[in-house]
């Protein structure tokens, strides 16, 4: 009963204190595309993604109702850093839906023009505003409306005291100045009271962004992690389908405990006091069913501690990925191939950065004790019978697409052109002419010359569930199986490779070679793929390019099946990973190949266009879409092959 009353009270008081306009709410996902495109069109970094922001502490006066309800302390403010433009998940600041929508667009434009300088938050925003208005004069009228509506909501400076008052006056003056004169003339930032240049010191200015400076410690961490055996990523075995892509503020912290591994600190500001660290080892949390994203939501900033080099083996085994022992590992084939990697900072290819090692699946020892695999080749064939037949038929139909061949001695139709030529030749007694003149045309099946290489991402992230029923790896396996059957039916040569990586050792799993037939052994290897390790996609693509380079076929397809972003243990993540992959794709194009990515990642639209071009990838959401998607991809890519 008490709980019930409490809940009702909370709901009541929260609504009463709420100053936003829920009826006019605009959600970020509804405007995401426009926001992203406006951001890039305004000159924003194409690698910056737009993501929902988490709540952070805000300033400004609160009324008593808000104080009673515990409201107005935190809000999702817009921030910008090297990787992310974080915008509020929803905006309900104004009573007018159109105005809330305009605010999103304005933030995108402002973000595109934002340059963090030492002049401080207020001055930076003013100059960004000015640049944005110059670049997008169409936003002027809307911006003026936004400023006026926002000024009406801002706390009156007269009611404040001391520094807060001066700050509020400065902010309001800046806002007013930015719309005077249609935003055309330069506005200099009003002088600020000392120590008050922080956005958290005033009521939130919804129209402005906070640019986060890059973490000064980040560089050190990268340098360290290059040779230490540090693992930043815990074993990724979460089975929840819901994706959480909120942008969280995180800061790397030195682990001061003598305990092991990846320790997250969090600042429990709202619980105890405002500046106390409470050490909580999140990796060793007792409760298994806890919703970690909820916990992370409640924290202002996540602190990630880096594991120090030279720590005990126990710590490493716990958090590093459990590498199989040599005897249990797949069989290595050959020496391994050195591969370069693209360094975006110096804009050059660093030779011999990683090494691709071909591996072949080692079948489990047949000692009779082991139960047969639940999803072997036979079971898979049974399960995918219908899809497989469907795709195969479509591929065969493609292959059979006829074309006209002219100048034949017999055929379906008379070629008028050839006939006329023949008549002329006959009149000309000097030229010899045969009894069966080549004047017919016939529809023939065309000769194809197409080699396909499929690269399947087998990194550990494919262990996550793409749908409630199927993991990503299941989709990848099914795709490989269906596609293999179909290509085999068409008769095009193809090779299938899986890839994963541990730092610079790239593991290339040999599933089917070009020279091998698509037989039970190959299908068994496909059925046996399992997720592990990381995604060094650039290296895998480069390896694929090398393989395809040896092929004599005129057209060569490089199909990549992946679930997500390139990432690896060392600095191969975020921007570096994306840039390297992008460059590898570019190299593939230069080599005359057609790289194409089939992905199962719903977030793919944020970065795949950057990697593969707007037309260079396809998104498959559900297993039952597989047949259709794969056929479409194939038709599109081979349409020009004659």
């Amino acid at each position, binding site marked *: 009963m008490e709980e019930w009353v409490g809940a009702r009270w909370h709901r009541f008081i929260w609504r009463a204190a709420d100053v936003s306009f829920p009826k006019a709410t605009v959600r970020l996902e509804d405007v995401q*595309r*426009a926001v*992203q*495109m*406006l951001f*890039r*069109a*305004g*000159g924003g970094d*194409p690698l910056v993604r737009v993501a929902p922001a988490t709540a952070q502490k805000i300033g400004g006066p609160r009324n008593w109702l808000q104080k009673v309800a515990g409201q107005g302390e935190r809000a999702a403010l817009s921030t910008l850093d090297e990787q992310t433009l974080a915008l509020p998940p929803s905006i309900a600041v104004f009573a007018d839906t159109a105005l809330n929508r305009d605010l999103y*667009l304005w933030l995108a*434009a402002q973000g595109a023009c934002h340059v963090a300088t030492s002049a401080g938050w207020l001055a930076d925003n003013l100059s960004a505003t000015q640049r944005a208005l110059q*670049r*997008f*004069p*169409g*936003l*002027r*009228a*809307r911006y003026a409306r936004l400023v006026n509506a926002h000024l009406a909501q801002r706390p009156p400076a007269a009611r404040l005291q001391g520094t807060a008052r001066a700050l509020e006056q400065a902010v309001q003056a800046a806002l007013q100045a930015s719309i005077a004169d249609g935003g055309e003339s330069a506005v200099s930032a009003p002088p600020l009271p000392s120590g008050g240049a922080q956005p958290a010191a005033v009521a939130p200015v919804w129209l402005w962004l906070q640019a986060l400076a890059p973490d000064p410690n980040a560089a050190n961490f990268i340098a360290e992690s290059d040779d230490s055996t540090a693992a930043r990523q815990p074993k990724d075995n979460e089975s929840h389908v819901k994706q959480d892509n909120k942008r969280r503020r995180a800061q790397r912290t030195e682990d001061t405990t003598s305990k092991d591994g990846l320790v997250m600190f969090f600042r429990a500001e709202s619980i105890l006091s405002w500046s106390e660290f409470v050490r909580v080892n999140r990796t060793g949390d007792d409760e298994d069913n806890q919703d970690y994203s909820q916990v992370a939501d409640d924290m202002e900033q996540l602190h990630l501690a880096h594991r120090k080099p030279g720590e005990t083996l126990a710590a490493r085994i716990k958090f590093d990925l459990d590498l199989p022992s040599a005897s249990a590992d797949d069989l290595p084939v050959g020496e391994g191939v050195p591969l370069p990697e693209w360094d975006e900072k110096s804009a050059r290819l660093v030779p011999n950065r990683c090494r691709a090692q071909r591996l072949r699946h080692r079948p489990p020892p047949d000692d009779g004790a082991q139960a047969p695999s639940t999803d072997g080749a036979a079971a898979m064939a049974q399960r995918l019978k219908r899809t497989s037949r469907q795709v195969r038929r479509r591929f065969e139909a493609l292959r059979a697409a006829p074309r006209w061949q002219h100048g034949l001695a017999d055929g379906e139709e008379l070629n008028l*052109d050839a006939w*006329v*030529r023949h*008549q*002329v030749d006959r009149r000309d007694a000097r030229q010899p002419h045969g009894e069966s003149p080549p004047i017919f045309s016939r529809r023939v099946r065309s000769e194809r010359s197409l080699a396909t290489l499929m690269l399947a991402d087998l990194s550990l992230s494919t262990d996550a569930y793409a749908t409630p029923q199927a993991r990503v790896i299941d989709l990848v396996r099914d795709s490989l199986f269906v596609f293999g059957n179909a290509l085999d039916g068409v008769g095009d040569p193809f090779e299938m490779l899986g890839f994963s990586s541990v730092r610079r050792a790239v593991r290339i799993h040999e599933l089917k070679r070009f020279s091998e037939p698509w037989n039970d052994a190959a299908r068994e290897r496909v059925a046996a793929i399992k997720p592990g390790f990381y995604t060094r996609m650039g290296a895998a693509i480069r390896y694929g390019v090398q393989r395809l380079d040896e092929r004599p076929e005129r*057209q060569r397809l490089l199909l990549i099946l992946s679930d997500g972003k390139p990432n690896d243990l060392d600095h191969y993540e975020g921007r570096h990973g994306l840039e390297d992959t992008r460059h590898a794709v570019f190299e593939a*194009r230069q080599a*005359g190949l*057609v790289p194409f990515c089939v992905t199962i990642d719903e977030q793919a639209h944020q970065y795949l*266009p*950057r990697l593969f*071009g*707007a*037309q260079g990838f396809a998104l498959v959401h559900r297993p039952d879409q597989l047949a259709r998607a794969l056929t479409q991809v194939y038709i599109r*890519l*081979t349409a*020009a*092959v*004659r």
Partner: protein
Amino acid sequence: MYRTETHSAPAIPFYAEQGDECRLFEHAFEQRLPALLKGPTGCGKTRFVEHMAARLGRPLITVSCHDDLTAADLVGRYLIGDGNTVWNDGPLARAVRTGAICYLDEVVEARKDTTVVLHPLADDRRQLPIERTGELLQAPPEFMLVVSYNPGYQNLLKNLKPSTRQRFVALVFDYPAPEIERRIIVAESGADERLATRLVKLASALRRLTDQDLEETVSTRLLVVAARLIVSGLPELTACRAAIVDALTDDADTAEALNEVVLAAFEQ
């Protein structure tokens, strides 16, 4: 019709030079070298050839290539007339005979076996053998072969054979610099400076979206079309929507988002 002919047009078509391409083209003409124009759609390749043909006083024969274009379509064929067969020169043979400039637009679209007939014409032999009539045409000094193609074109499986490509003097084109593009819009559509400036600004915003959000970007041609619609009295946004946004994408979501960019760059 897939070909058009301009016999020494009285006025020289307007062309705003981006670099030194006019002089380069003139030298190639003098040296009897064939030219290859590379550049994105609508950046002014065709206009450049028209301009140069008029400047050099040569007739221009343009062939738009497509994937069914055969060698016979280029060289010529027999036709039936009055119960008799008559040889009919194709555009290429006619250009060689009359000493014209023959312009093969989007040459990669043509079949690979078709482009081979260009080989003897494109090297120092400058000959066009016509097998069916047994003729061997020797190109006069005034004849020039010009081909164009779009290297970034989406159909990635099509490309020019290296053996073909290496016979040509290459001229690389791109969208003109903002200042030149503004002049082009003013000259082509009669737009005022203000409108032209805004269109160029819009173009630079939209061009930042290429590859990632858009397959192809806005061409100078589309800007001119939009400007002409606006000058003829259509509201700016309607014109931009029709001439630019809907020309760039078929995807409704992308079109909506593009429209926001246009609105932001353009509204009063």
